[in-house]
């Protein structure tokens, strides 16, 4: 799964929470973590419908329009992982 975290440089909220979110996500198999500074890739943010920051997308779908808690992120990744397993 590909996770994209959209942030603005200097965002204290993002800096504080990113490390914990990334560590939690990477306990799952096959995670690709990308941090996107919207000033560097505005088009990608617009593609996904990001209007507020920080925001987090999973597999190209905007899932969280504010930073999730670690528990919310892990639950979402597990749900998606389960759906993939069911579909296999």
């Amino acid at each position, binding site marked *: 799964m590909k996770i994209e975290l959209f942030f*603005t440089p*200097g*965002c*204290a909220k993002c800096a504080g929470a990113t490390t914990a979110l990334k560590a939690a996500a990477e306990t799952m198999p096959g995670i690709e973590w990308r941090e996107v500074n*919207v*000033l560097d890739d*505005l*088009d990608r*943010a*617009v593609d996904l*419908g*990001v*209007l*507020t*920051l920080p925001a987090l997308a999973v597999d190209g779908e905007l899932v969280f329009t504010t930073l999730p808690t670690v528990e919310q992120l892990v639950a979402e990744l597990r749900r998606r992982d389960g759906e993939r397993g069911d579909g296999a």
Partner: protein
Amino acid sequence: MLTIGKLAKAGDISPDALRYYEREGLLAPASKTDSGYRLYGEDAVRRVRFIQHAQACGFTLAEIRDLLHLRQADGACCDDVKSRAIEKKLQLAAKIRAIQKMSAALDVLIAECAGGSLPVDDCPILAALEAVSFEAERT
């Protein structure tokens, strides 16, 4: 002190707009005369200019109120303002893209119509707008 007329002239804005800013919580008179006329301090000219410049950047009045509060908030810093500017830019970019899509949809409709004096019942643009599957939406 400035009367509403003088402030309006200094800010190149109508007195009605200043009263609207007041209703929206963006600008308040420093005092009122005995007869109830609004009086503004010299800082009101700067505030009006701030509001006008922020509107020119696409901020809504509610967002401008937020920016004005931020300016006075003890714990706020430049990054807080910058993040609002970046979010506004994101919203504008999304609107620009939506408008480009509308323009492309109109291009499709215009290309379909040869013009001329056909009756409107045969107009391909009207027919396309009425169709169940709208070709231009897929552009």
